[in-house]
């Protein structure tokens, strides 16, 4: 049978196959294992070698890694005026930084960069790049795109840009004092910008993310602000004043429509103290405009009515001082109304004396004139009160001396006196004034009497405010010419000339306060009294600003009857 022999033949390869693989296995596998082991050992060797090399390598010194917060910037909400017109916003600008470690030639880089960036000296930049261990140094932040392009074109290694948010003020110096300013990290350092920080409305952001917060809407109207600035500048020039300030605020709510202090400041540059806001940052003895408060106190406390007569001819002697009126006056006893019109210091002092120190102080406190106050969150300079409130102080405060106030604080009190007697706190924020609690400071009747004498002071032939009249706007107001204190007493030639006014007088909508610091005499202004400088300046301001604020003139102006004197009428007595 041929079949059986095939079995072993067929089996033989089956059996030989495992044998063959068993004998070939060790021969083929060993080199592979050895190769794998070799690779592993080599890798281990490289790692160990590297460790040894690193351990052996000479270390320069213990290095401190300093983390610099390179990307933190503050994003701020926009600031807009009462009609939503943009005043301040954040835009992305390139900021230049250096990595001195990557710089090839520090001297060359410093010199080339100094050529392109005009604000830098090569030596200054060289110092900046000197430490090669620093990996990050700010060079210039908030560059103009053109400058950034020129730096880029230098092609220097180790210089690079980051985009950062930067505050910009498209209106330039307009309302600069009110807006304030920010530092390079976009944090507010003065004015409303500082207030935004204090109110927690800024966000620390990375990169260019903008804050989602709503814009800050101001009560300022930029058209009125511009008009007021222009008119005040021309008044400052015309009367050759060293400085000037003016504010227009809503008589009912205290919302400031325009506020200017000259010389101006640019919010894009840091504030220098010589240009401080004279409306809030300084206190001044305001002089005769303060008689409004004295008369109001007299009326409110029932000490006098407008017809009560005081003998002002002799002057008023208190201790070693004698108060006299500068001009000759009508030479007869004057009623309170006439004291106001002629701006008699003696009359105001007599009235104040009758009111008495205690009640005077309490009345001023009720008007908020003796306390620290704030314009929103912006601090207003503290009122400077007499150390001892005696008889002489009571008399001098009656005509506005011996008590120094920030003009804005006075403007708020004046608004409270003419608006019907409700307390007004000046504010820069739209809608803020209405929300405040309205407390009564004087009766409606007193307020009406005050409006009456203020209007009379402008319409009457012997009123000091004659040249503040603007046909159709029914202006009422009071002049003030306060000698400034200097070395060895008050200076006759250096005065603060001011005019406080409200319009239209039958139902005042706006209050204005104009101050000229150290005006000089000149053509058409033979004297440096408010009736010939601050008065006419107020008329020009009201004529220009009132239509912008939506106050329209009325032809049938009541409350006087006399034709108003033109701006260039001869100067009446102060």
């Amino acid at each position, binding site marked *: 049978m041929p079949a059986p022999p095939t079995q072993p033949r067929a089996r033989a390869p089956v059996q030989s196959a495992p044998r063959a693989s068993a004998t070939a296995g060790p021969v083929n596998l060993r080199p592979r294992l050895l190769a794998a082991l070799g690779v592993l050992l080599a890798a281990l060797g490289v790692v160990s070698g590297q460790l040894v090399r690193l351990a052996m390598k000479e270390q320069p010194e213990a290095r401190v890694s300093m983390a610099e917060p390179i990307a933190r910037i503050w994003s701020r909400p926009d600031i807009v005026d009462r009609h939503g*017109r*943009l*005043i301040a*916003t*954040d*835009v*992305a600008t390139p900021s230049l930084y250096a990595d001195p470690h990557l710089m090839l030639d520090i001297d060359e880089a410093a010199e080339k960069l100094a050529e392109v960036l005009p604000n830098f000296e090569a030596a200054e930049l060289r110092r900046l790049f000197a430490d090669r261990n620093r990996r990050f140094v700010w060079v210039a932040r908030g560059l103009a795109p053109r400058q950034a392009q020129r730096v880029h074109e230098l092609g220097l290694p180790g210089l690079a840009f980051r985009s950062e948010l930067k505050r*910009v003020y*498209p*209106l*330039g110096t*307009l309302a600069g004092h009110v807006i304030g300013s920010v530092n390079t990290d976009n944090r507010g350092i003065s004015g409303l910008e500082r207030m935004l920080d204090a109110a927690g409305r800024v966000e620390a952001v990375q*990169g*260019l*993310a*903008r804050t989602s917060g709503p814009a800050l809407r101001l009560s300022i109207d*930029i*058209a009125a*602000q*511009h*008009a007021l600035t*222009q008119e005040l500048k021309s008044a400052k020039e015309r009367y050759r004043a060293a400085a000037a300030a003016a504010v227009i605020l809503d008589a009912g709510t205290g919302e400031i429509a325009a506020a200017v202090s000259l010389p101006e400041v640019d919010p894009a540059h840091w504030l220098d103290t010589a240009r401080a806001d004279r409306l809030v940052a300084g206190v001044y003895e305001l002089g005769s405009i303060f008689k409004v408060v004295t008369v109001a106190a007299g009326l409110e406390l029932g000490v006098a009515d407008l017809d009560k007569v005081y003998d002002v001819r002799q002057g008023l002697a208190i201790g070693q001082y004698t108060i006299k009126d500068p001009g000759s006056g009508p030479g007869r006893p004057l009623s309170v109304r006439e004291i106001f019109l002629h701006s008699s210091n003696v009359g105001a002092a007599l009235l104040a004396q009758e009111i008495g120190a205690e009640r005077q102080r309490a009345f001023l406190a009720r008007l908020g004139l003796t306390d620290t106050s704030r314009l929103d969150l912006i601090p207003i300079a503290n009122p400077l009160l007499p150390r001892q409130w005696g008889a002489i102080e009571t008399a001098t405060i009656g005509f506005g001396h011996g008590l120094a106030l920030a003009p804005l604080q006075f403007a708020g009190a004046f608004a409270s006196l003419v608006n019907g007697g409700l307390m007004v706190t000046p504010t820069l924020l739209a809608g803020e004034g209405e929300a405040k609690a309205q407390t009564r400071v004087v009766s409606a009747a007193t307020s009406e009497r005050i409006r009456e004498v203020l209007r009379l002071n402008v319409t009457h032939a012997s009123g000091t405010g004659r040249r503040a009249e603007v*046909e*159709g706007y029914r202006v009422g107001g009071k002049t003030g010419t306060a000698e400034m204190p200097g070395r060895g007493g008050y200076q006759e030639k250096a005065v603060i000339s001011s005019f406080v006014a409200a319009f239209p007088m039958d139902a005042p909508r706006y209050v204005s306060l104009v101050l000229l610091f150290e005006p000089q005499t000149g053509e058409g202004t033979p004297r440096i009294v408010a009736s010939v400088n601050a008065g006419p300046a107020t008329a020009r301001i009201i*004529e*220009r600003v009132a*239509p*912008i604020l939506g106050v*329209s*003139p009325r*032809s049938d102006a009541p409350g006087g009857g006399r034709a108003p004197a033109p701006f260039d009428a001869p100067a009446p007595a102060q």
Partner: protein
Amino acid sequence: MLRALNTVLMLVTLASAVGLYVVKYDTRRLEARVQAQERALEKAENDVAVLMAERAYLARPERLEPLARALGLGPLSRHNYAAQAPAGERQP
């Protein structure tokens, strides 16, 4: 029977691994797109801010006033107001 089940399970595992891979890369692509969109939004917002600032700069009163005066315009005076007739007498 068990082998078939194993095979099926193995296939399912493989399929889900592939699926996971696809989903993961899709997510990464989406994330990249979201980031790109966010950057674009940021850029657009900043461009808008720049344009708004430029518009405010061009419309600043300091610049408009001389232009308006050159056109013969001036501040509103009381002579520009016309007496208004009572509502009943107004012309249609």
